[in-house]
């Protein structure tokens, strides 16, 4: 896992979302919008997003972390913070 800066994190998030919602339109998504609502991600989509982000960044994302992944800015901050710290204990 390597540390991400904010801009890397944003692009990882957007890219991951695009994989799930190919025609996601980020121009109408403000940093503080709830992207699950705007982009209509259902629980399975969201789970996929978690999976992707986890894979790509190496960050462990638990269910309790889900509320951190509500807006783009929250999620960015979350990834930047988590990649800066050592990973938590893994199974």
């Amino acid at each position, binding site marked *: 896992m390597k540390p991400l800066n904010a801009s890397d994190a944003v692009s990882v998030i957007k890219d991951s979302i695009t994989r799930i*919602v*190919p*025609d996601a339109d980020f121009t109408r998504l403000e940093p503080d919008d709830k992207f699950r*609502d705007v982009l*209509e*991600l*259902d*629980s*399975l989509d969201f*789970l*996929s997003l*978690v*999976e992707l982000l*986890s894979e790509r960044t190496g960050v462990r*994302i*638990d*269910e309790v972390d889900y509320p951190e992944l509500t807006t783009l800015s929250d999620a960015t901050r979350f990834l930047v913070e988590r990649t800066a710290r050592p990973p938590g204990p893994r*199974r």
Partner: protein
Amino acid sequence: MTAFTMPSLGADMDEGVLQEWLVKSGDRVRKGDVVAVVETDKAAIEVECFQSGTVGRLLVPPGTRVPVGAPLAVIDEEAVPGGRAGAAEEPVTAGAEAAPPTAAGPVAGTSPRGTPGPAGAGREASGGHERPTPRRKAARASGPAAEPVRGETRRPPEPAAESAAPVVGAGPLVRHLALLHGVDLAAVHGTGAGGRITRADVERAQPPPGRRVRATPYARRLAHDLDVDLTTVRGTGDDGAVRAADVNAAVLAGTGPREPERPDRRRDSGRRPDTAAPADSRAERRTDSMRRAIADLMSRASREIPHYYLYATIDLAAAEDWLRRCNRDRPPADRLVSAALLLKAAAVAAREVPALNGYWRNDGFAAAGEVNLGVAVSLRQGGLLAPVIHHADTLPPDVLMARLKDLVQRARRGRLRGSETTGATLTVTSLGDQGVEAVFGVIHPPQVALVGFGAVVERPWAVHGMLGVRPVVTATLAADHRATDGAVGARYLTAVDRLLQTPEEL
């Protein structure tokens, strides 16, 4: 050197059109090889030459009408001393007919593949008898063919693929066929005399043609209009014939579109607006068609089925706790979502209340022997699919979850298989992620019930006289009053509730 002339192919033939050359100058030909296609008033006929040798100049371009007897090409008989540069010779014939030394140079460039050998040589030896005969004719043709070498060099070089290395034991027609059908002659086992590759060998070696799909004309039309690849559609008609319903099902299931999601499709279409338009309009038609299909089905359901509706709000605290515990130690890929539990509960409840699991047909209800759960999946571009999780009641939640994820993903990518779109005995729809609390659905005939789940929300909840905040979900049941009465429906929702209180047993 002799002339290959327009043959008389029938008593009434005076002239013919040289339709196509199957050889080019420099090719080795043998007596009996098919070298050209001539079109008469009656048919296109493959014509053979009567000399063995090397094709010199082609005197007549394709498309020319010439009288019978007119020279079409010059054929230089083999073993003529001073063979032209570039006139490749096959090792087989070289060894058999000509003195090896004269052909030594060209041989180097030929492929040793194939089965040259004594058998081939023996056969070729007989070909040698032909030599004196063409010689006689050559005199006549000497005029037009006076400068075969220069004529040859003036011609633009042929594509290297074929000319570079005439394959052992294959005549011009066979080579032509091979080129036409994309057959690599090197890989073909020749069954002719001396291992010679015959026409039949090439035909056998052809990649199998696309499976001829048995489909009705209307289904074909629909498939074309909706851009569905018929080979991907499972036919339910006579002998597996694809019928319109199958195409519609494929559209609804999202299987079979010829252009499944290509990530770069947008950019692609931007670059090629000519192809973009039809593709887009096809997509629109597909959407229209799905809309129409849904419209038809739902109208029919609404028209024919007397629905009754029940709902129950279910405490999900136990289920959510259980999920949380399960997921805590799992990587995201292995985690469960509450939908999986809800589906499982719905399926097990259906097994318990079989009167809701089956079909209304012929004025009567027929219970299904298994629980195949249709799962309504909304598509981003609009529309709805209901892929089926077969035997959902028997699947452990993990498996159910994996199946659900897989189906939903493939449904949205248009990758469902036919069997995954049919056979549902009960359908579940969940609009919880869209934020609604309850969904009162329309039954999908000939099924007799539809189960709906709303959003999991936190609500004040009294348990044992104590008020607390609990996650709850509103489960709804739309059921066919022809098949069941409200009491049955109530039993079903009660069962769902009960099952969700002991998630670990699901």
